């Protein structure tokens, strides 16, 4: 395919990432310091894509304001999916923007460009679809595909049987037949999915190809996964963690601060005397790290302020968080409770959602999740889950 155009599905909230998705969708959450969606665009451009249609919905103002009309000189066309009724439904929203073959990827999962290029190369227009595949063992958490001689015979979401599935990378090349197939497939629980559309293609004897690739494929299912995803990007070289590459020129770093690689320090950050930032620290735009504070193995989102002498380890913050002077988030494994489920021994020092105010001198027990705009008075021990807007008194 020559200069292909891509459709990026970025309309869903990603509700398992709550409370970080209170004001913005999962594609705008940070991987290292930039939105997941920005990495998705980078990989598409790397694969030679010259036009991108972005399906937006939940929090669309934020997506459109962040990226504007172009990304690295590639024009972005936004189409709105008013209600989020499945990945197939999302693709239908882009139907009028698509001429010829469409390359379709998810806006909330980062797929290395080689996987995308392999799909583009393998696709020929006599097939209705080509699906990118990986050899991974976690098919049950995502989707599985059965392939015979390069032809897809079955595509299943969250397969639990013992057949030898390939992992569905969520990278597709589609011909226009897909639109009718999505419409013809019976919705499940009111939702139209891409996999049901592909199943419909298979049932109509259309040719669906599968191509097995290798490369990085990362997804944040839960908020603490943002840490591993960011660190994976360092390891894979997708984010260059050297100071020369990724400390913004507009950042101000005190000569007596210590910066340890890998690290990303976005524009307008300020780092005070005696502070230690990194390794594995990702500071978003306009973050302040006070004197003698320590930030390590953490993703600190834009406009957050880490107070003097605070310790921040294994921590994920939203935007505009205030971590007070002397607060300690020592990190290490802890049990995280999400609804009725308990995730044991997750490495999460704390998750502080957008605009949490911590007034200093607090201690966080690993696994703590604090909802947006919660206000934690000085001297508290914070554990468990604290909901949005709660005032915590010591």
């Amino acid at each position: 395919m020559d200069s292909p155009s891509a459709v990026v599905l970025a309309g869903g909230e990603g509700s398992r990432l709550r409370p970080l998705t209170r004001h913005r969708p999962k594609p705008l959450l940070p991987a290292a310091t930039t939105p997941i969606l920005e990495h998705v665009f980078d990989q598409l451009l790397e694969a030679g894509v010259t036009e991108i249609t972005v399906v937006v919905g939940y929090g669309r103002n934020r997506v459109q304001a962040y990226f504007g009309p172009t990304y690295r000189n590639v024009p972005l066309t936004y189409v709105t999916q008013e209600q989020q009724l499945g990945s197939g439904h999302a693709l239908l929203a882009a139907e009028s923007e698509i001429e010829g073959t469409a390359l379709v990827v998810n806006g909330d999962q980062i797929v290395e460009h080689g996987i995308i290029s392999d799909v583009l190369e393998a696709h020929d227009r006599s097939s209705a679809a080509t699906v990118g595949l990986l050899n991974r063992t976690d098919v049950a958490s995502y989707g599985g595909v059965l392939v015979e001689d390069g032809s897809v015979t079955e595509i299943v979401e969250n397969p639990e049987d013992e057949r030898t599935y390939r992992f569905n990378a969520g990278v597709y090349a589609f011909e226009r037949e897909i639109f009718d197939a999505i419409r013809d497939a019976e919705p499940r629980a009111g939702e139209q999915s891409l996999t049901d559309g592909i199943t419909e293609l298979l049932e109509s004897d259309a040719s669906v190809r599968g191509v097995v690739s290798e490369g990085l494929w990362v997804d944040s299912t839960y908020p603490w996964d943002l840490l591993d995803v960011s660190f994976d990007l360092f390891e894979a070289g997708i984010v260059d963690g050297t100071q020369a590459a990724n400390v913004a020129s507009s950042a101000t770093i005190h000569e007596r601060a210590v910066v340890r690689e890998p690290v990303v320090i976005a524009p307008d950050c300020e780092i005070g005397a005696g502070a230690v930032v990194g390794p594995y620290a990702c500071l978003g735009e306009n973050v302040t790290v006070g004197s003698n504070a320590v930030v390590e193995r953490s993703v600190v989102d834009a406009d957050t302020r880490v107070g003097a002498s605070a310790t921040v380890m294994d921590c994920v913050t939203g935007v505009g968080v205030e971590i007070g002077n002397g607060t300690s988030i020592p990190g290490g494994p802890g049990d995280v409770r999400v609804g009725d489920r308990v995730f044991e021994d997750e490495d999460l020092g704390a998750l502080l959602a957008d605009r949490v105010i911590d007034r200093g001198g607090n201690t966080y027990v690993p696994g703590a999740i604090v909802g947006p705009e919660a206000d934690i008075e000085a001297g508290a021990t914070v554990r468990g889950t604290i909901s949005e807007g709660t005032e915590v008194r010591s």
Partner: protein
Amino acid sequence: MCGIIGYTGTGGGVLDVLMTGLSGLEYRGYDSAGVAVANASLSVHKRQGEVSALEDALPDGDLDGLAGIGHTRWSTHGPPSDANAHPHTDCEDQVAVVHNGIIENYQELRGDLEASGHDFASETDTEVIPHLIESALSEGADREEAFREAVHQLEGSYAVAAVFDGNETVYAARNESPLVLGLGEDGHYLASDVPAFIEFTDQVVYLEDGQFARVNPSGIVVTDAQGAVVETAVETIEWDPEDAGKSGYDHYMLKEIHEQPTAIRKCLRERVNELEGSVGVEELSELECDGPVQFVACGTSYHAALYGARLLRERGIRAQCFLASEYDVGMVPVSSDTLVVGVTQSGETADTMSALRAANRSGATTLALTNVVGSSAARECDHVMYIRAGPEIGVAATKTFASQQVALAMLSSVLSEESSMEFVERLRDLPDQIQQVLDGSQARGVAEAYEDSDAYFFIGRGYNAPVALEGALKMKEITYKHAEGFAAGELKHGPLALVTEKTPVFAMLTGSDISKTLGNVKEVEARSAPVVAVTDSPDTVSRYVDHVLEVPSAGSRFTPILANIQLQLVSYWVANRMGRSIDKPRNLAKSVTVE
């Protein structure tokens, strides 16, 4: 205020370049539009209305040529009509002319020309120019001599361009109206503003007052008033042309409202240091000012200037604010230690430029606070501070107001040499706090509730008073409804007579003045008017008002910046529900380059 474009090149496509240019200039006026293309004869097409009306009126098939000029008009002399649209031609259709500005002596010139037998087709001041050229041609002058002779007779402001039949050259001249030349690969451009041709080239030369340009496919020659060739500097424009896309928003105005967090980040970048508590603006490192400060500005920029003057006074600097059109150096004392600050988004606003030029002549130090690099204000003032808001296309100013406010806050710190960690912390908090307002605003619901009102009033005191004025201006501009802003205490001294149950009152209740303004709220409630509070203290005020639009607290100086965001959204949603032409309100233009 009008926009002009000219093009000559070897690659053909003259009409396409002109039409693209006019679309890029439409923000400067859209009462009428027209083009002239030079071949063996001149083809002139013009229509009342927006550029799309001209597009519909163009003949089918090729209209290519050697060179061409185009114009989009904002009426000054003569109402919008096909006849008054530019380009204008002479009696014999040998020359076509487009013009931005005002010819002050046109009545006299027209009288002389009519007396010597010239027939005029329009009521415009511009039409004298082609007839003057014709008259010089008939006396034996060549084209360039005729053009220069005609321009030398003009008094007033102008950016003017002309093409002749059978000729590939575009002739141009400027005096007190903007004109920029563009150097492309296959041809050369001229325009009132860079967006007109940025799609084709980013290499530009700014023409200075009194200069002439001869634009040929092979090159550009700039000369001074006497005809001597002038060396010019070629500059590279760093704007991304795609910045002019709506990126999925229904209107540029809504896009620009949502761009405010980013605009403020750029405004502050490398100018503040929180851990040191310092503010430093590189462009102003040479600025020294111990004397009084006078602000001159118009419209939204005037409201920003009112806000800025108060910031300076709070820091002990004598600061006054003047409407640029009312500024008179003879009436206010201006001396060599006075700093005159012109606040102008475009850097071309004629009223502001005129005030700044008067200040320059009277020996004051001048400072331009502007968004446009290379603009007249930036070039003519002694100092310039850029607000870095990026291009603003919507005629109603939004993000540039916020950026002006933040830039003025930094200026207040630079001039007073006072700053603190807290002050800088407040500034650096603004991008996220604006985002918070945008994320949670209930303005759309308030707009729906009060869409059918007779009028809208806005009140605020202190730093909120200019915001009340700005809120009312925004409402007027894009909804065409009656709206007024008052210092809160003034309401009872007259305007209260206008207040009824059909006139909602928007009260800015932030910072330390809440209790006094609440007193004014009770005055209007006694007259049954609905009240919308824009406040950082909902718990205190909600029981007194009908609706609350909440903003985070940013201190008494900066919370009004956040309150204004809510008012922008209310106006936007009222105008949206009324189906108004939000990005191009009737009778208005983005930057007004006539006095």
